[in-house]
């Protein structure tokens, strides 16, 4: 039987098929899924901020796009995944409040998405699909068995990306 593993805010987890990784109520944070389709090993990080080097309090590696991706890759490689086979899916990075301001503090969702993409790109990890931006929260479930990422939102139909 498949087990559903919950990933909290500023947290990350890995698992193997048939298990499912989930994170609830993503807002401006980004859910980064990494997946080895051959070994069916997957990882999910719920990051809050783009860059650990900009922040003094940066001990929690799961909190930042740059450090969380590194940790996920290492853990997955230890489980038998191959780095050049990894692919990615992204969700989240919403702007929850309709600020008129354009300052960086308010654009945090967008910056989280940009940073995640840039780092994945640098590592040569292809992004298969994404559901990012807009102004609503998302709950996501990743199925290690087939690589489906289910996106649930309030007041809209669920979708698989």
């Amino acid at each position, binding site marked *: 039987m498949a087990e559903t593993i919950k990933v909290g805010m500023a947290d990350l987890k890995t698992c193997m098929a048939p298990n499912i990784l989930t994170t609830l109520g993503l807002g401006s944070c980004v859910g980064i899924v990494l997946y080895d389709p051959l070994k069916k090993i997957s990882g999910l990080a719920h990051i*809050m*901020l783009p860059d650990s080097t900009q922040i003094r309090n940066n001990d929690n590696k799961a909190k930042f796009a740059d450090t969380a991706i590194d940790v996920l890759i290492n853990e997955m490689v230890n489980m038998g995944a191959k780095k050049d086979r990894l692919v990615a899916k992204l969700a989240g990075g919403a702007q929850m409040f309709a600020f008129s301001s354009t300052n960086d503090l308010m654009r945090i969702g967008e910056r989280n998405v940009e940073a995640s993409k840039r780092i994945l790109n640098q590592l040569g990890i292809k992004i298969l699909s994404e559901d990012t931006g807009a102004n609503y929260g998302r709950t996501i479930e990743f199925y290690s068995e087939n690589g489906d990422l289910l996106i649930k939102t309030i007041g809209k139909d669920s979708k698989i990306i």
Partner: protein
Amino acid sequence: MSDKMDFNELNEIHIDMLKEIGNIGAGNATTALSQLINKKIDMGVPKVNILEFKDLSEILGGAENPVVGILLNVEGQINGMMMFVLQQSSAHNLVNLLMGRDLDDFTEFTEMDLSALNEIGNIIAGAYLSSLSSLTELKIIASVPYMAMDMAGAILSVPAIEFGKVGDKALLIQTDFGKGKEEVKGYFILIPEMESYNIILNTLGIMG
């Protein structure tokens, strides 16, 4: 104690002081609310909690539970944000009280309801901020309120990210208004920037 501090290092004296601000702020907010609906409102003793991010949305019924958040940017001698958040059921109670409707009315919010909620949030948050301002004698200017209704986790991600820059915990002040059927549970989240934390605590004579 050093003149700079980390949010994780907040001690009991700091918490007591923030609790006291919460108390006075919530008192002002209750009076404001009571005048608005022209009815006496009871207020519970505010509870102050310092919570890990992962536990923050649990207080609000879980990360997927629908809530209403009203956010104000704070400027002046203190910079940061302030959020007033309540469960959707409490938001319904509040709007029904204000509109003089049946308390069992759980129909969808109209445009008018939403704008009323936004204004209530504005008044409540403003009352809290003005007590902080008079206690510290610091000039605090709040922006127009921004409102969003969505999953608790998603709404709270905005203040959590701000806290995330300085620590792994968030400060939450819970206030209960009314009782029984009319109960409205509201939560204040105050997120000063690190520098502003020092300013607040210094002004209160706790540090330095």
